[in-house]
């Protein structure tokens, strides 16, 4: 035992009604603590029915004031439940809240053990450990950082647009970054939206325009975030504004350049590969902003050095072939990531023949096919461009709920499949088969839509489709696509010939989601979706303070949920902005500059880039605001130069000694 003067420690053993007292002899434990831990500095040990009750808290506050306690141990439930409660109580009584520790004798003792003797013994050990630990606790002050009121929203889909508008309307500035030429995201590609079937463009366009013209929104399309440094309250972001080769101030968006451009390119972004665009283009009529972009890879001038048709015909001389990429630096306090999803690549399920069999389409292709503004002006036809299908098969769960691809349910496919069935009926009167594993139509008015589609006469086959082939086995299969499936409702194998197959492909994280996650210092789940702080209670925040997620970047969801999340994320941001400063938990690491040898071993350990190395002084240093307090560097420093508050070596080692006290008392 070190010679330093003893702390005055109060130990409070909670009965939690019978939850603890039923198994642990709390009275004995309290007496034992007062007696056996006296040498540690325990001056008072009480047991009480409900420590977390206001009376229980007052008990502690009273002792702190009257006995001048310098440390408090509450033996009760898990700190995750009531640590805050008791620390606040201590604070009210004028004791630094971080001098209070909890010993979990409910979750870790009474609830999981039955033998009273053993349980009581373990409770004592746990308390002994906590007492030894709390002696080493240090009084800590919460860290406060000012919040820059500007916000960065990454991704101009419906979720991003929603977030941006919410914040902008509240009167704060937003930078909205989109890597495509226009905002709008996937929703802009759709024709109708389930279950109400209102026209996607009709409801989306006004929002796009509002975002495009909002005084508080700086719209940065055809742009990508290159680097992010700093931390909550003051992120420093570098954005690459890719050259459009259009002088925006001069451009009126008249569209002549597009008409005149001789080079036609398959548009596999907006048209999902089903239509064409020019080398200079705006992805679609209602694009925001209205300025086109020039696609360097395909532009004849850039390839051959001649052409310049657009330049010749542009009435305002807005074409600028010498435009360079531009790098913009901005300061923001918070960031919302609404980077959306990629459609599952149906070609991977080769037995469905997409990519090999012309008349197999993906959901996104069909969206374009059925879209009045699409390549066929809304005619639902086969790939030959003219024939209207007489029978259509819609396959659900393509790439979803499948061990070979993605285990998860993509949420929207069922409703999407039903929507397609309806549209096919409406527009072609063809026979429609829906092949599904389970029909999932949760949420408002969804199942009603299902009923409606049923009544329209869509045929539903329950079973996973084995293959789609054009190898006919008999006359009436000839020239058709045959869907081979098990019909689990009649327990038979069936071969159903159709003219057209639509694959209701699942949703997938963006192919570069992991890199984006790294860029912003947040993590991805096994599936690759961004991980939220808490799956239920904090679905839009992330582990990294000041970074929020919304829409499909967090997981598959439909439009209403995406909008809701966008709004939720901005609400969290506004709350931060209005607080003007943010409080950070004081669990941080710091490097003793005298003791640091500059070996740089810690440098590669911090995923939050909180450790910087000073070449001049040859020492490393930790930026407290970036530090998340994991303690990995503390454990790694070979010179023992890094210490971590809240979980210091002294605390842990003391706790080990305390926990093993009985073992070392054997025979004594």
């Amino acid at each position, binding site marked *: 035992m070190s010679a330093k003067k003893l702390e005055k420690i109060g130990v409070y053993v909670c009965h939690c009604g019978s939850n603890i007292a039923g198994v642990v002899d709390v009275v004995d434990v309290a007496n034992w603590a007062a007696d056996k831990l006296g040498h540690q500095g325990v001056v008072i040990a009480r047991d009480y029915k409900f420590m977390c009750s206001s009376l229980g808290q007052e008990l502690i506050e009273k002792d702190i004031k009257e006995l001048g306690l310098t440390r408090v141990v509450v033996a009760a439930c898990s700190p995750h439940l009531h640590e805050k409660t008791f620390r606040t109580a201590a604070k009210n009584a004028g004791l630094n809240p971080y001098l209070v520790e909890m010993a979990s004798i409910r979750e870790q003792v009474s609830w999981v053990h039955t033998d009273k003797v053993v349980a009581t013994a373990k409770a004592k050990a746990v308390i002994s450990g906590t007492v030894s630990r709390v002696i080493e606790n240090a009084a800590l002050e919460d860290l406060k950082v000012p919040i820059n009121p500007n916000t960065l929203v990454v991704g101009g889909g419906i979720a991003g647009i929603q977030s941006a508008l919410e914040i902008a309307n509240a009167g704060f500035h937003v930078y909205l970054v989109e890597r495509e030429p226009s905002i709008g995201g996937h929703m802009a590609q759709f024709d109708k939206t389930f279950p109400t079937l209102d026209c996607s463009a009709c409801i989306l366009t006004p929002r796009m325009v509002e975002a495009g013209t909002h005084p508080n929104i700086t719209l940065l399309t055809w742009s990508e975030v290159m680097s992010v440094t700093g931390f909550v309250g003051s992120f420093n972001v570098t954005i690459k504004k890719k050259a459009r080769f259009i002088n925006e101030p001069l451009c009126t968006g008249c569209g002549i350049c597009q008409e005149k451009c001789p080079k036609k390119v398959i548009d596999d972004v907006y048209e999902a590969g089903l239509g064409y665009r020019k080398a200079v283009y705006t992805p679609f009529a209602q694009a925001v902003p209205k300025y086109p972009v020039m696609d360097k890879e395909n532009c004849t001038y850039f390839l051959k050095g001649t052409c310049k048709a657009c330049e010749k015909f542009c009435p305002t001389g807005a074409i600028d072939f010498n435009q360079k990429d531009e790098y913009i630096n901005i300061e923001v306090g918070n960031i919302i990531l609404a980077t959306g999803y990629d459609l599952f690549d149906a070609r991977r399920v080769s037995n469905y023949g997409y990519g090999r069999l012309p008349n197999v389409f993906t959901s996104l292709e069909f969206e374009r096919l059925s879209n009045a503004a699409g390549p066929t002006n809304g005619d639902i036809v086969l790939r030959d461009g003219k024939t209207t299908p007489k029978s259509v098969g819609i396959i659900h769960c393509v790439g979803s709920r499948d061990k070979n691809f993605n285990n998860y349910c993509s949420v929207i496919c069922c409703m999407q499949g039903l929507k397609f069935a309806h549209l096919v009926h409406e527009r072609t009167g063809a026979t429609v088969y829906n092949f599904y594993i389970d029909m999932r139509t949760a949420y408002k008015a969804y199942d009603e839509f299902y009923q409606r589609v049923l009544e329209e006469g869509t045929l539903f086959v329950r079973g996973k489709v084995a293959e789609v082939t054009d190898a006919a086995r008999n006359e009436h299969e000839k020239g058709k696509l045959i869907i081979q499936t098990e019909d689990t409702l009649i327990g038979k194998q069936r071969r159903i010939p159709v003219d057209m197959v639509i694959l209701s492909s699942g949703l997938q994280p963006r192919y570069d989601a992991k890199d984006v996650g790294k860029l912003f210092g947040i993590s991805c789940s096994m599936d690759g979706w961004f991980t939220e702080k808490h799956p239920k209670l904090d679905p839009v925040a992330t582990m990294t303070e000041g970074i929020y997620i919304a829409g499909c970047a967090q997981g598959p969801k439909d439009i209403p949920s995406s909008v809701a999340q966008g709004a939720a994320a901005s609400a969290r941001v506004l709350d931060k902005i209005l607080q003007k400063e943010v409080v950070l938990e004081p669990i941080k690491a710091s490097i003793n500059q*005298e*003791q640091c040898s*500059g*070996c*740089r071993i810690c440098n590669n350990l911090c995923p939050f880039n909180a450790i910087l190395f000073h070449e001049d002084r040859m020492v490393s240093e930790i930026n407290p605001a970036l530090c998340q307090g994991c303690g990995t560097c503390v454990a790694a420093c*070979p*010179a023992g130069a890094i210490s971590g508050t809240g979980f210091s070596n002294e605390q842990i080692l003391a706790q080990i000694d305390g926990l093993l006290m009985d073992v070392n008392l054997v025979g004594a």
Partner: protein
Amino acid sequence: MSKPKFAMYWSGSCGGCEIAVINIHEKILDVDANFDIAFWPVAMDAKVKDVEALEDGAILLTLWNGSIRNEENEHMAHLLRKKSKILVAFGSCATEGCIPGLANLSPMQEIFDVAYHTISTDNPNNIHPQTVTKVPEGEITIPALKDRVHTLAQVVDVDYYMPGCPPESHQIAAVIDLVIQVLEGKAQLPPKGSVIGAGNSTVCEECTRKRNVKMIKAFHRIQEIAPADPELCLLEQGIPCNGPATRSGCNARCPAVGAQCIGCYGPAEGVIDYGARLVTAFASVIDANEPEEIERILDGIPDPTGQFYRFNLADSLFRAGSSAFKKNGH
């Protein structure tokens, strides 16, 4: 007027510490000038009875080098503790057990079995030395060895620690200057228990080699890549250099000639277990996430225990390998 008394004693050591003290060259004369040398086997003749005759605390400063290897060492440690005001554990053996501390990895019995049965030993009757032997003329004795090597602090209370195998002469000179200044009232002694004659950081601080963010895919034995890149950090070249965890004060002499630090200055300030620091340090530079890959990389360190506890075993949390606790003949 009588000068304060100075003593230096060795126990189970190699004599290197004595040589290191002699290597302070002219400074030795300062010692002579400022101290009355009461007891210093290497430098002069003296008698233990004289030491026994002194009253307790009569010696101002005693530098003790060597580990506690046999009963006699321990006996002398208690004697000199009693007679000295300031007892300094001097050198690696006294502070942490040094390389002979590696003996703690095996039971004493085994050490005898090996030592007295080497290839060149002619010992048909399996004779081992014994503490008492009857010879025609009578009975003669030798001291019994302890089951394991102990550091000085493990048997008596120690005032200061001076690491190094041996401590570098410029550090010894500095300490002697300090003590002399204290005598002249020009300086204060550091708090009891401090480490003196060394830095608080680690060897890297004094190492002039260039270093980057460390990520290595393999460890190499020095003979596999020598001569190493003369500019670059040895650990970054995959050579298991103990520098990052070893206390500074030696001016990183070994890395300076292309040899890895082997850790003779022991742990840095406040470190509880030297080996643990190296475990975590080496593990931290490994550039792999798959267990198999990690294991493959670790195979590059043929003898982790020896590597990490080369000097520090006797002072580590474990003190010794478990077999060392087995009684002789067990």
